[in-house]
């Protein structure tokens, strides 16, 4: 008997230290060039500012508590919307994949709403719910829920016949079959949907905040731009981007943890 037969190659190889250094080098060159060009006014500082001014503005926003205050507002709408979308989307998608008739009935609607540019719904949602946490939550929810439904649906539908047969032979009833076979078989698809949702949710919440309100990361980006507070504008952009990176990396980690058997 051979030992481990086809041992899988490590799924993710870290980039070599050299490549990392090159990445950092390029960034440094860009930042220095920007700094010089900004301070010497080779570029219009009204539009572009420069790194040290942006850093200063960032620090001020951190120190005076503005970042924390606005982060809470954005995070609230984001988390509630994304979480609700994951729960509702997973449940609906899995149900569609599991009960074929139900799936066939709902499928055209999912296709329609997935294809629709959902940002187009924002004016109606704002009309109905006003500028409020609720409207922002609903916007995030609508933005995120469809890819999750779609993935859960495909995931449940593609459960290999063989695995279902195997479970049935060993006496699994409908509920046990769903919990022990269909759900875990759909999990890779579901998680891919959640990953998409995490990124999409960030876009949705920022765009929702553009439309109005008095706080939140997106609202501060919009306000800074209107008032030509360029360093602050870039500072808010930086915070938003860093938050998005943290969320995507977190989702990556979660995916690798949940999929460690694959």
């Amino acid at each position, binding site marked *: *008997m051979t030992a481990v037969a086809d041992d899988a190659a490590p799924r993710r190889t870290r980039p070599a230290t050299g490549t990392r250094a090159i990445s950092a080098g390029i960034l440094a060159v860009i930042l220095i060039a920007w700094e010089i060009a900004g301070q010497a006014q080779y570029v219009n500082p009204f539009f572009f500012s420069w790194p040290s001014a942006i850093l200063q503005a960032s620090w001020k926003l951190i120190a005076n508590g503005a970042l924390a205050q606005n982060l809470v507002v954005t995070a609230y709408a984001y988390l509630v919307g994304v979480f609700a979308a994951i729960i509702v989307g997973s449940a609906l998608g899995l149900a569609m994949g599991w009960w074929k008739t139900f799936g066939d009935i709902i499928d055209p609607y999912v296709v329609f709403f997935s294809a629709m540019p959902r940002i187009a719904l924002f004016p109606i949602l704002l009309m109905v719910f006003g500028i409020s946490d609720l409207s922002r939550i609903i916007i995030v929810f609508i933005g995120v829920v469809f890819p999750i439904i779609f993935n859960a649906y495909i995931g449940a539908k593609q459960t290999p016949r063989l695995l279902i*047969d*195997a479970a049935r032979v*060993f006496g699994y009833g409908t509920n046990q079959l769903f919990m022990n076979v269909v759900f*875990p078989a759909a999990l890779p698809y579901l998680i891919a949907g959640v990953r998409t949702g995490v990124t999409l949710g960030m876009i949705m919440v920022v765009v929702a905040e553009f439309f109005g309100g008095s706080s939140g990361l997106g609202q501060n980006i919009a306000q800074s731009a209107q008032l030509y507070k360029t360093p602050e504008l870039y500072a808010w952009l930086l915070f938003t981007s860093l938050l998005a990176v943290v969320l995507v990396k977190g989702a990556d980690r979660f995916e690798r943890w949940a999929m460690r058997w*694959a």
Partner: protein
Amino acid sequence: MSQSPSSRRLVVKDLYKTFTTSNGVLPVIDNISFEVSPGEVVTIVGASGSGKTTLLRMIAGLETPDRGSLTLNGHAIIEPGPERAMIFQHFGLMPWLSVLQNVVFGLKTLSISPAEKLERAHEAIGRVGLKGFEDFHPKHLSGGMQQRVGIARALAVRPSVLLCDEPFAAVDAMTRLLMQTDLLGIVTEQHATALLVTHDIEEALYLGDRVLVFSSRPARLIEEIPVRIPKPRKPEIRTSSEFQALRAKVWRLLQEHTK
């Protein structure tokens, strides 16, 4: 072969099965009857696509016959049950479960304590030679080892009859020879009752106490051939003149009845 009351047997009687396709009704199983006694290993050999697997699936309770009856230990077979366990050609392991969890998976619906489930799983894993691989996931095992997990999962249930659907068709030739001998050893040692479907004539003769030769679609039972080579059997018996004569006979029957 020991005689036993028919209540302890697997009885297949006047079985018919058709599939409805876009091209009309396709007969798959045509009037098949046979019995399997406790402790007996019966092998079914026939061309690929001859309906052998369908027969096994009906006995497992995954499909229902159009006509005829299936009884095990005096009870009609209408759905899957723990007195029948199946070994699948393509293993049917849950890729997200470890070796141990996959074996326990087969015991899920039995009303025994979790401790006993674990104990049985470990015992079965040991029996198929996978001790030390309990925490491996199927992906990290060779095809042969995956099928050993499939065998352990079925053995752990302690079924009245072990249903084997082309169990070694998906593993390489070398491993196949080793595993045939191993399965024969396990089945003989456990006095297990098994019904094994294959398209490999040598496998059918090597493992079976009796070989049922099936015609190609629709499957009919052409002939029943007792294999009077005593057990335990060693791989060398395959070269004996007795074995070769049986092989030639089965081959001739299959050629005559395969379209």
